[in-house]
């Protein structure tokens, strides 16, 4: 088997973060490889490194034997690599046909007019991906699935030998998933090498020839979809399992009016439904975990609560509707979110980041909280003068949590704190959460994919799946009822 795409020893570092460390994979002509890994595992970075959008620090990317590592994307593209982007930004003032024609144009400055056969080829591609009926419409008027078809059409236009597809089925209905699967299977029949990047095995299992699972920038398992799903290390990565927490007393049900009530909230991103009729309730002092795979809608839910995305439905804080309040006002009111992306000020020091979080406090109060933060996360104390961007992933997460705590939240929202972190760091984070739960009155709303991390602290658990809450209950019942169907 001669591989069409051959990646070996690929390394990419962002500041102190190792996003990809020694990645290797190969795909033969007419083969579909699924690259899976939880959020933050580095799979998107691998895709960008192959395409040349990011420059690798080490390693090789061979396309039909030619090493293209470090080439600019347009040269990689001409070498025969096509990328189907997940989020498209088509030309809005041009029609669908013109958008497809764009992909068929040569990269030349002196060819003012397209070859006559471009029009014909564009129409043929549109037919093939199912856009034949909407050729003269503008992208803004198309439903979500058709925009994805347009991206597929543009990638086909370049006649790539290697096709990279980012989350092929995200946001599609089951009927559309079938049509897209057929199109991708068509690539295989034509002898192209296909790389599908997705969060979990389930989504791509029916389509792929092989699956490669990665975690923390490295491959951890490879084989058929069934083999990878059964792999103990993969199960541990997705469901957790490597962390030890102190045994805790049985969860207590707290009574009284809810501190935060989310009632029937819907969120639409363009045409994709990100949340559908979601309702949750949190009482003062509770620790609530919302678990769900990536893309289920956790971040959207938290962003709706924080006033960062528009929504339909009602979100109330101490009985008062939050709609109409600015994100800043909501944060000052006591709902502090520690986002998945951490959003640290990278070119500021650790201390400056913390001081910013506590900028509304008196000097004495700030010093007291700072002392508490250094007790909670001792590593931050020794790193005070270091720039945030140069911290390791785990340290950045600790800083993000500490900065959120400096704002003295009544409700602390933690969005996937385990994202891309090694098990040893998870233990430290878990202990910090335990301290928070037992020694402070702070209410916590934790969003997690890693169930083992999310369960031990939780008083109650919500399961979010495909934009909907599908299960609610206490952690003990979760293990018995919902756990098995989760991966």
């Amino acid at each position, binding site marked *: 088997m001669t591989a069409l795409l051959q990646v070996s020893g690929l390394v990419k570092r962002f500041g102190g973060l190792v996003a990809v460390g020694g990645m290797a994979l190969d795909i033969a002509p007419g083969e579909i490889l699924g690259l899976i890994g939880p959020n933050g595992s580095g799979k998107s970075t691998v895709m960008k490194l192959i395409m*040349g959008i990011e420059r690798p620090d080490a390693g090789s990317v061979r396309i039909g034997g030619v090493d293209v590592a470090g080439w600019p994307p347009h040269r990689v593209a001409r070498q025969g690599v096509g990328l189907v982007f997940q989020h498209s930004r088509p030309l809005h003032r041009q029609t669908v046909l013109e958008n497809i024609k764009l992909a068929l144009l040569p990269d030349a400055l002196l060819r003012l007019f397209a070859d006559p056969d471009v029009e014909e080829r564009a129409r043929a591609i549109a037919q093939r991906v199912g856009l034949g009926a909407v050729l003269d419409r503008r992208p803004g008027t198309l439903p979500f699935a058709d925009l994805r078809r347009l991206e597929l059409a543009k990638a086909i236009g370049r006649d790539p030998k290697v096709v990279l597809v980012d989350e092929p089925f995200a946001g599609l209905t089951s009927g559309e998933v079938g049509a897209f699967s057929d199109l991708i299977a068509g690539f295989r029949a034509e002898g192209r090498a296909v790389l599908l990047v997705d969060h979990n095995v389930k989504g791509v299992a029916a389509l792929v020839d092989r699956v490669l699972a990665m975690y923390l920038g490295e491959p951890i398992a490879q084989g058929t979809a069934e083999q990878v799903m059964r792999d103990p290390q993969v199960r541990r990565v997705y469901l957790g399992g490597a962390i030890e927490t102190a045994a805790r007393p049985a969860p207590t049900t707290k009574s009284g009016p809810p501190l935060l009530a989310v009632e029937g909230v819907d969120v639409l991103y363009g045409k994709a439904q990100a949340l559908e009729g979601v309702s949750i309730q949190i009482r003062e002092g509770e620790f609530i975990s919302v678990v769900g795979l990536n893309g289920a809608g956790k971040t959207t839910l938290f962003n709706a609560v924080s006033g960062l995305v528009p929504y339909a439905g009602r979100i109330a804080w101490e009985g008062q509707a939050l709609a109409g309040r600015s994100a800043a006002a909501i944060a000052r009111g006591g709902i502090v979110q520690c986002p998945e992306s951490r959003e640290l000020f990278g070119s500021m020091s650790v201390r400056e980041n913390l001081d910013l979080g506590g900028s509304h406090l008196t000097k004495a109060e700030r010093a007291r909280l700072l002392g508490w933060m250094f007790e909670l996360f001792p590593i931050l104390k020794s790193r005070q003068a270091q720039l945030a961007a140069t911290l390791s992933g785990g340290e950045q997460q600790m800083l993000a949590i500490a900065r959120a705590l400096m704002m003295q939240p009544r409700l602390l929202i933690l969005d996937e704190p385990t994202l891309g972190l090694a098990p040893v760091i998870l233990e430290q984070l878990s202990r910090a959460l335990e301290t928070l739960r037992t020694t402070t009155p702070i209410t916590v709303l934790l969003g997690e994919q890693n169930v083992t991390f999310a369960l031990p602290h939780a008083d109650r658990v919500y399961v979010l799946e495909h934009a909907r809450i599908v299960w609610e209950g206490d952690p003990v019942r979760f293990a018995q009822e919902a756990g098995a169907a989760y991966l």
Partner: protein
Amino acid sequence: MRGLLRSRLFWAAVLVLAVAAVLPLGVSGYVLGLLTLAYYFGVFAMAWDLLFGFAGEVNFGPTFLVGLGAYGAGILNSETGLPIPVCVLFGAVLAVAGGLLLAVPALRLSGPYFGLTTLVAVLLLQQMVTVFAQYSGGEIGLTIPDVLSIDDATNYYIALCFMAVSGLILFGLSRSALGLILQACGQDPVEAQALGFNVAKHKLAAFCVSALFSGLAGAMLVFYLGTASPGTVIDIAVGVQVIIAAVLGGRRTILGAAVGAAVLIVAGEVLRPLGQLSTFIVSAVALLTILLVPSGLLGVLMRQRQ
């Protein structure tokens, strides 16, 4: 080409040009002089829109290119007495060369830094004019021995033809295959690259075309005015006028930029009796247009027709 002939905007422009062509039969020399100026300004603005509207790069220093063309042509003429066409061509070549010298390093920068570089370039050029005053006439200005014509109508027709031809080329370019690629490079450079387009190359080419027309127009302008001074062809305020004209007329329309330039210059003149207040009113109207109808005058017209 077929697309161009089918475009209603194109035929509307032809109609406007036809009306403009018969104007000298009925209006005073003063009005013709004003419109002549507006037409050269129109070319500045159209050349600017190619960069902003299509390549997605904000050039805060259009007068760097205009000034290079103007002073290049003017100085060559006053020093050597070479014929006007040679001087104009020299000015245009100088603008492209200067533009390349600036854009090659500047386009490596991302975000607002490109714009800032172009802004600084204007200040540099202004200083050069002062430093080399024995050739450039310094702050007072350079008197140019040759002029295009002393007849108002002739000057008017030269400017109108120049604007029409420039507009046709720039508009055609924007609607061509290259314009499509350029727009893709401006809107989503990552995806454009993934489709195999060398984004830097296309943006640089757009910058050269923009520089060529800015330089040509700048050179023609000094042979119309008979003088070149920093206040008329280099000053930041002139550059801001060019930008306002293009945005007022409508981003990504090319032709809108010429409309904006005409509106801006004519409005400035009509309101002149108000003194200082006229600049204020023109600026305020421009500001309101940008805030309320960011797609510009032509953008609004085109949207209503759809």
